[in-house]
């Protein structure tokens, strides 16, 4: 999985990384020993949430920033607690 190689290279170069991944890829986060992974219970292609769901998108960003601040070692995998929800664009 491309992000694993990219993340390792950036982290090794001295920049902390955190990755937002849908649950379908959770096993890859563990196999690739990604430094910090936030697992979201969203369908593939919608890691931040549904189109137009700005609230959820902000919640995911907040969670990944919290993960960046709290992780103390490689391979920290945290699950975002909320389930996916669709959101009409005009809502």
């Amino acid at each position, binding site marked *: 999985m491309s992000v694993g190689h*990219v993340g390792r290279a950036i982290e090794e170069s001295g920049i902390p990384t955190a990755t937002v991944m849908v649950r379908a890829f959770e096993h890859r986060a563990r196999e690739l020993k990604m430094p910090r992974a936030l697992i979201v219970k969203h369908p593939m292609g*919608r890691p931040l949430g549904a189109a137009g769901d700005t609230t959820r998108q902000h919640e995911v960003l907040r969670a990944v920033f919290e993960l960046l601040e709290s992780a103390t070692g490689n391979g920290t995998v945290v699950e975002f607690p909320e389930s996916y929800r669709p959101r009409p664009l005009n809502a």
Partner: protein
Amino acid sequence: MGDHEQNESFEAFRKSLSYGSRNDLNFKFFKGMSDEQVASFLQDLLHKLGDAYDTGDVLPLIEAAYEAQAEGYSPEPDAPPPRNSFEEGPFTPLEKAIANSTVGMLTTSGHFVAGDDPMPFGEASLTQEDAVNRINEFLREIPLLSEIPSDTPTSDLRVRHGGYDIRSAVRDPNVTFPIDRLREVQARGGVRRLASTFFSFPGATSQGRLRSELPGWVERIHEEEIDVMLLVPV
């Protein structure tokens, strides 16, 4: 029956959703499941649709599809570790709070700025349909990293990636490239600064050629003087 064999097998049907005659990137995982698993999933989905006729609530359908997708991508419990799995990994501790940090972003979503097409295979104006049809070529090709100024208007973003259903990202780029959301976080002081440039490439690419590109990419990323990097794969 259209173009399909009159006595098409169920196996042929489920595999046709993975870059076949019925390609559907949301359900290409059918290819890796058994006939019985896909049949059970479809039966359950239709049953839930029967409920939705009355309730109007499609969430149970979405949840069933989500669960099947997560299961479809999970390895068998006794599967050997895949190539590119690691026992150890790097870890760089944070030096300062996120609110005092400069934040970068790199996604494998295949975004680029209108007028700055990375031109895979040297070809201009490749469509999403082209990218899907040529997925095997992409998987052998050198990855092209697009630079996206972090003040790019969302309406100027384009997306192309033969590996996932981009419809959601077309409706709202923030689902795979949360540029507006990061700008909003920065505007209210949640982060000190955003990188002047974000990055994206289609993750469906040659892994070996990607690794060869990485030293140059990392050097370019360091020019952004970021404190942390947000990564979004699709």
